[in-house]
């Protein structure tokens, strides 16, 4: 059962196919088939070579993992080191220098705020840096200004130490307010008059210094 449209479609397809001139060429087919077979040789060789390389690498990795059994253990080891005599205090691996934590003798640059221990046994100790000055600086002493907080102890190489935040120094001072003694150099200290920002400059030392 076909309608006129299907007959038209059938006639169109037949006419289109009849316009195609076909010339079978078995020789060309055989040449193409031979070429494909010839191309398959180097490809198969490459696959075999790649398999050998991968298997060799796998064997080497297996020997490394299974020979001593220590690589996995090393990877599973904790990444922190507990110093003897200080239960729970952890520092960076490899750190053997003095600590900035208030546990032993010497200066106490930071104040312990709280200590928390998580359910998994991790102890968190929070310290405050003393309200903008360097640790336990006595009130009457010449405290360094805010922003120039020197590290109380030199941070050993490779350890994780507190990095003091340094605010940028005053960049310019208005000549009209400094009485002719203002300076424009970065980091210089005004010797007289007021700073441009109004009030005391962060770099001005205390009056009794």
């Amino acid at each position, binding site marked *: 059962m076909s309608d006129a*449209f*299907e007959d038209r479609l059938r006639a169109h397809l037949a006419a289109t*196919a009849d316009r*195609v001139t*076909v010339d*079978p060429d078995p020789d060309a087919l055989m040449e193409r*088939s031979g070429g*494909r077979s010839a191309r398959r040789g180097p490809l198969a060789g490459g696959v075999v070579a790649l398999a050998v390389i991968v298997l060799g690498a796998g064997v080497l990795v297996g020997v490394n993992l299974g020979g001593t059994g220590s690589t996995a253990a090393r990877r599973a080891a904790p990444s922190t080191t507990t110093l003897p005599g200080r239960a729970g205090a952890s520092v960076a691996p490899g750190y053997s220098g003095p600590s900035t934590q208030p546990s032993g003798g010497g200066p106490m640059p930071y104040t312990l705020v709280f200590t928390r221990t998580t359910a998994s046994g991790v102890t968190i100790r929070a310290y405050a840096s003393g309200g903008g000055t360097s640790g336990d600086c006595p009130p009457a002493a010449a405290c360094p200004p805010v922003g120039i907080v020197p590290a109380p102890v030199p941070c050993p190489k490779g350890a994780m130490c507190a990095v003091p935040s340094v605010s940028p120094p005053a960049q310019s001072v208005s000549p009209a307010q400094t009485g002719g003694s203002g300076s424009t150099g970065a980091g210089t200290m005004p010797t007289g008059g007021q700073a441009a920002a109004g009030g005391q400059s962060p770099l001005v030392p205390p009056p009794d210094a």
Partner: protein
Amino acid sequence: MGRLGYIVEDERGARAGADGGDGADVVGAVPPTPPARGSDEGPSGTGAASFTAFYADHYPDLVRLATLLSGSADTAPDLVQDCFVRLHGRWTAVQDPLPYARRSVVNACASHHRRVARGRRLPTPEAPDSELGADELEDALARLPARQRAAVVLRYYSDLPDADIARALRCRPGTVRSLIHRALKDLRERIEP
């Protein structure tokens, strides 16, 4: 060449991961009796002769089929030659070569359309909706999806029954009827709005 007359293979999965399925399944199940072509047929000896005869008999028809499926008379011979090269390599394993070759041509033409679409960075041919050209039926056919066009060509050019079309398209006969129905509806809407 050894006796390989009873090998039944299904390379569907391997082909799908390689180049989009240009190949075709070996048609037929394990036969209860030796096949009529005999197990001594192969690329050498009488098998080579039978392959050459098969090539001479069916190459023109398959090139015309590929021309209708691909829409390009220049590309069709290359596609069919590639299909015959694959068939030549599996000549001893294929029990019914004509459906195998037909399916291989259909898959090759579908892959050709995908390559062309990728090369032009365009969607599949059913998307454009510009005006039809002089040969409106040819243009409307070219805008059908590849499977619908294959179903239409296999039905109205090759005069295949639903079962053979389903075998060539790897689907069920009901799907073939659905494909043809939708294709005819689309063609009618484009040509006779």
